[in-house]
């Protein structure tokens, strides 16, 4: 019998999307704040539902296509917070730039629903559909500003590359189904462990699945869309694309690689090592030469993805925990960094050049300090949480016996320090180009301050979040 209560968060979110969509279409432009408020209530409601119906044990429903477990629940709760932050940061910017439309929030919620389905998917078909649901809403969001040629171009690139990657993923899934005769993750893993199993075709299928996962993460050589999308899309949408989907990418890798294809760990470990090394090297070195802050964040994402992959490479239980920890920390940092761009921009002016950060200390010492926290955390300076995130993934690859990879990770972090600290240098020691004070709404200021300080707080007590990751993963 189907236990609908297990899937309550998804059911609630589906209903909420329909309500927001219908209410929005009946609203006049000046009443658009109702859509915003309703979307926020939808997120709060989903959080309440997730907390009420969350389970301590692992349970499946819908004939094994949906799994409810504490880790999935924790990831969903974190995703609600992030999407709420995205909406909060974006409202002001959208209003200023004539993009304040209900569809932004509806598409954002659609993307969140895709993420939730992906987090809780227990068979390859559902995982694929969740991935598509999120990807489709992201494509539409990137092209959201129809008057911007850059946005249309980046959306086109994202869409074409994304379609190819999703086609590859589907091809890999079909090969795996052909071998194992099942799409459910548990039985799939069982079929792959059978002695005399068809390992060679399974590896072929695996290779295609890895392409799909790597594209979702944006790992080199499937990273081409990241810099263009981050730079071309309006900042709130770059913020959305740069934050929540990383949780989805983690969930996809965790469900498919660890739970479904766990028996092939030796095989995908090698593939991930290649992706990881390329991402670390290329991401960091290309980030140095960027002058556009959003594009630089794009390349920095790629290098962070290299670190997230390290956790999976280790393949141990601790490795997955570390990857989850790193993902959560990275998403928090990326949200704060994009939030700062929104904070600095004004009507018709995007603070996306590195030069726009020059002399920030003179304009607003407090936000220069918040930015300092974000940049230090991205670099990995103790006692900020970014440091512990790097530390745990490096530890896990050392435990797996890949000392050289850990050494490369350290070198990459040092190279990365150059471009992050350059911004700090600009903020404190360079002359400001315009010394006008910051104009931003109070809610935006408060939220970014809290977001930045959370990096410090989590860094001072890193054990709390790490233990939480370990306990929910079971």
């Amino acid at each position, binding site marked *: 019998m189907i236990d609908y209560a297990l899937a309550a968060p998804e059911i609630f979110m589906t209903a909420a999307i329909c309500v927001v969509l219908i209410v929005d279409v009946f609203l006049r432009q000046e009443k658009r704040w109702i859509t915003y408020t309703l979307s926020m209530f939808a997120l709060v409601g989903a959080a309440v539902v997730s907390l009420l119906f969350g389970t301590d044990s692992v349970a499946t429903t819908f004939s094994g296509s949906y799994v409810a477990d504490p880790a999935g629940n924790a990831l969903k709760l974190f995703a609600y917070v992030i999407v709420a932050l995205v909406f909060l940061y974006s409202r002001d910017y959208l209003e200023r730039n004539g993009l304040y439309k209900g569809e932004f929030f509806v598409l954002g919620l659609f993307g969140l629903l895709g993420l939730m*389905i992906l987090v809780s998917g227990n068979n390859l078909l559902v995982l694929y559909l969740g991935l598509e649901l999120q990807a489709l809403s992201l494509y539409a969001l990137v092209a959201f500003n129809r008057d911007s040629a850059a946005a249309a171009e980046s959306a086109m690139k994202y869409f074409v590359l994304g379609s190819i990657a999703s086609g590859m993923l589907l091809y890999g899934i079909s090969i795996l189904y052909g071998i194992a005769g099942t799409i459910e993750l548990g039985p799939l893993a069982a079929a792959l462990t059978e002695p005399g199993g068809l390992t060679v075709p399974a590896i072929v299928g695996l290779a295609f699945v890895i392409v799909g996962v790597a594209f979702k993460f944006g790992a080199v050589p499937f990273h081409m869309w990241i810099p263009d999308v981050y730079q071309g899309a309006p900042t709130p949408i770059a913020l959305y694309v740069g934050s929540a989907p990383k949780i989805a990418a983690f969930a996809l890798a965790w469900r498919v690689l660890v739970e479904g294809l766990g028996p092939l760990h030796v095989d995908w470990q090698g593939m991930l090592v290649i992706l990881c090394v390329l991402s670390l090297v290329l991401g960091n070195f290309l980030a140095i030469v960027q002058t556009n802050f959003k594009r630089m964040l794009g390349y920095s994402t790629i290098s962070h993805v290299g670190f997230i992959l390290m956790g999976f490479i280790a393949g141990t239980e601790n490795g997955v925990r570390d990857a989850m920890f790193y993902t959560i920390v990275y998403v928090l940092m990326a949200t704060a960094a994009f939030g700062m761009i929104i904070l600095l921009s004004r009507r018709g002016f995007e603070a996306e050049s590195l030069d726009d950060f020059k002399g920030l200390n003179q304009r607003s010492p407090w936000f220069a300090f918040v930015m300092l926290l974000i940049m230090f955390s991205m670099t990995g300076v103790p006692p900020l949480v970014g440091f512990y995130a790097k530390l745990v993934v490096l530890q896990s690859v050392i435990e797996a016996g890949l000392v050289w990879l850990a050494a490369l990770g350290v070198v990459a972090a040092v190279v990365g320090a150059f471009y992050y600290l350059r911004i700090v240098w600009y903020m404190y020691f360079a002359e400001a180009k315009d010394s006008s004070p910051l104009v931003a709404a109070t809610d935006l200021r408060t939220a970014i301050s809290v977001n930045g300080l959370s990096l410090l707080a989590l860094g001072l007590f890193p054990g709390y979040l790490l233990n939480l990751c370990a306990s929910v993963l079971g």
Partner: protein
Amino acid sequence: MVTTVLFYAFAAILLVAALGVITARNPVHSVLFLVFAFLQSAVLWLLLEAEFLAITLVVVYVGAVMVLFLFVVMMLNINVEELRSGFTRYLPLGIGVALVVVIEIANVIWFRSEGQAFVTPTPHAADYSNTKELGGVLYTEHVFALEIAAMLLLLAIVAAITLTMRTRHRPGLKVQDVPAQVAVRAEDRIRVVKVGPVKE
């Protein structure tokens, strides 16, 4: 026996049509060749007794997606000669990708059949309905996936409207109001003015 002959006949036509897609000078002809290729693939699916997929291919792809393709081709005004200028440059890459796919398919088939001869599947009885079998699992076992598919369609509606619809009713924009035009009466348009004799 008959099905084998039919398979090779339709597969050959499929290949010819597929070649036509990439060699036709006129992009509209390319799309029509693609329609033809889809029809042939539908027949191949039918030969595999996957009748629902065959019907779907005809209804959705031939009936709707290809219409969209035609619109897009006509909207973009593609010049194929320009597109083809890169043909030889990309040829090695194309051959490479094709080779990889061929090797992989061969690989899967080879290992699947390792040590065992292919068993020809027995044809189903005359009253077997593939559509019914599919429906039997789609609406029970995979109901979760079905509802996600509905959400995907809803998302596609929202995305398509967001991206392509431009409202034309901006204030001050003059638009044609057909009912008003039809309902117009002579009195609204012409004013008969009696002009008296004018004295110099």
